[in-house]
């Protein structure tokens, strides 16, 4: 039995039976709301949203047949289909529009001032600190969108908590997260081998916040990233830049992960924000990046090396060896000083005995790999930076 089958068997005793009480409760409430609808003020007993906004939003939803197939969009010049609906009118739900674009085409470099190519962690910190002072960055406006481009590795050898074989199944995905964090859009991933000139025609799917859907940055969604209290720009921008004080915050921002000591907690909180957060459209203020690199520089157990990301780009790697046999490496772009991906690599041969048997992981084996190819603020979902 592997770990998934074990979990699947947990609490398997709970029977699958008709639930007349649930059915009855639902049908009674629906009938009651019909009696008083539309716009009736009756609140049903079971419907007790933690936030007042949710019920208001849902009521409007029910009365407004929304979006979807009706959105016939003109396809722009290889860039994006116009989605005016999501500009000022905030409608909740899920919709799709036609989309056309070149998913693997490189994005123009950001107007980030470069002080040169960093080749050491000290240089990186010096450059990023200066850059952050000159170009402090900004929060996306609530109706702007953060475009995210990711390359992700899977394996022909299979996966189960890590890549069993070589990282040979690579795809590129594009997604967009609205500035307020409460809506997201995406197009289906394409193989990373797709040439930059290839135009893909497909569908852009847009989700907006509603009960049942959650986004890490959406205020009041009750969900945030890992152990982070918040990942809104204003919160991140308010964090201390003094390394010791920031370490305190980071140690508190660690999710319930297996950490053997405080440095590991701090490192994993950073990993959560950069790897998981930035890839989900969390915008990290440059001065926080600078402060984080400072923390990494002096954190016990963190090592520094030249590294290559999944897309073959050379970067600066900060890594920590976890659980004694693999290193979790965060790769930073030496020219823009921004996060460009993570890589988990075995640092020694390791026999991983798990519930489905023992697998031998060879030293140097890549266990997980993904690259953040771009993050940029744009006006509309589906739009690529130009």
């Amino acid at each position, binding site marked *: *039995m592997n770990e998934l089958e074990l979990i699947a068997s*947990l609490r*398997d005793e709970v029977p*699958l039976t008709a639930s007349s009480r649930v059915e009855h409760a639902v049908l*009674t409430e629906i009938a009651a709301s019909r009696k008083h609808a539309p716009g009736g003020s009756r609140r049903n007993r079971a419907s007790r949203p933690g936030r007042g906004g949710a019920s208001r939003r849902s009521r409007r939803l029910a009365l407004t*047949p929304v979006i979807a197939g009706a959105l016939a969009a003109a396809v722009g010049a290889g860039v994006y289909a116009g989605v005016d609906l999501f500009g000022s009118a905030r409608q909740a739900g899920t919709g799709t529009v036609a989309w056309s674009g070149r998913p693997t085409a490189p994005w123009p470099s950001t107007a980030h001032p470069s002080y040169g190519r960093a080749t050491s962690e000290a240089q990186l910190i010096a450059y990023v600190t200066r850059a952050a002072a000159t170009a402090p960055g900004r929060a996306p406006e609530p109706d702007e969108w953060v475009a995210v481009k990711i390359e992700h590795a899977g394996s022909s050898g299979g996966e189960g908590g890590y890549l069993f074989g070589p990282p040979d199944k690579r795809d590129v995905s594009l997604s967009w997260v609205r500035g307020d964090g409460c809506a997201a859009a995406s197009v289906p991933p394409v193989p990373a081998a797709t040439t930059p000139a290839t135009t893909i025609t497909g569908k852009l799917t847009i989700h907006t916040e509603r009960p*049942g859907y959650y986004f890490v940055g959406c205020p009041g969604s009750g*969900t945030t990233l890992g152990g982070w209290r918040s990942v809104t720009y204003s919160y991140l921008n308010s964090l201390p830049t003094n390394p010791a004080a920031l370490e305190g915050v980071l140690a508190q921002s660690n999710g*319930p992960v297996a950490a053997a000591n405080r440095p590991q907690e701090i490192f994993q909180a950073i990993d959560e924000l950069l790897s998981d957060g930035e890839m989900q459209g969390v915008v990290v203020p440059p001065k926080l990046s600078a402060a984080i690199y400072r923390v990494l520089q002096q954190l016990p157990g963190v090592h520094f090396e030249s590294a290559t990301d999944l897309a073959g780009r050379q970067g600066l790697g900060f890594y920590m060896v976890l659980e004694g046999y693999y290193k979790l490496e965060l790769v930073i772009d030496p020219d823009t000083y921004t996060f460009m991906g993570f890589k988990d690599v075995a640092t020694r041969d390791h026999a991983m005995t798990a519930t489905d048997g023992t697998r031998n992981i060879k030293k140097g084996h890549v266990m997980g790999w993904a690259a953040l190819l771009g993050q940029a603020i744009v006006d509309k979902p589906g739009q690529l930076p130009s």
Partner: protein
Amino acid sequence: MIVQDEGVAWRARAAARSSGDAAYADDATVIRDSVSDPERFAVLVHRHAPAITRYVTRRLGADAAEDVAAETFLVAFRQRASYIGDGRDCLPWLYGIATRLCHRHWRMETRQLRLLARTGVDSVIEPFTDQVEAQVTASAVKPRLAEALSRLPKPQRDALLLQAWADLTYDQIAKATGVQLGTVQSRISRARRRLREQLADLNPAQMNEGDLP
């Protein structure tokens, strides 16, 4: 028969309908029809209440489950006009709503898992087993599983349980939780890696000796 109560009459009509044509319509059709004809929604409740109730019960226990399961359908009812499904099966959508509603009981869920981890007795399955049986089947594996589950961050626990307990595919989990496919892959991947590590010392042979049903 004279039916005074509108709700009862409505349910009677809905039940009559559900035994007829609507029983064979797929979920997307039922939902679409229910926008103009709300009674049709009863078909959906009847069809999926058992699965949703079981999933929520496994996460939260029977006490909290009824309310959460009922509210899942009420939320779905209010949002039915914006439902965009790929046809036959709206369960992933409902599981997504239920998962989100389970978050209100996050602390309780985690507390119950910790209790199972410490004592080996699972309050969630108690109503469905007799006490003696519950004690006897308390294996070495379950507390470890519960401990590992209780340590998973919210998004990872959600993704893993949607896969393990709701049998959703990565793609369905992505749709149900409103995140990228790649994010789901990495969440489940990380969750599974943690579990593998935390359960690594369990002897596979032991586990095949009926520790688990």
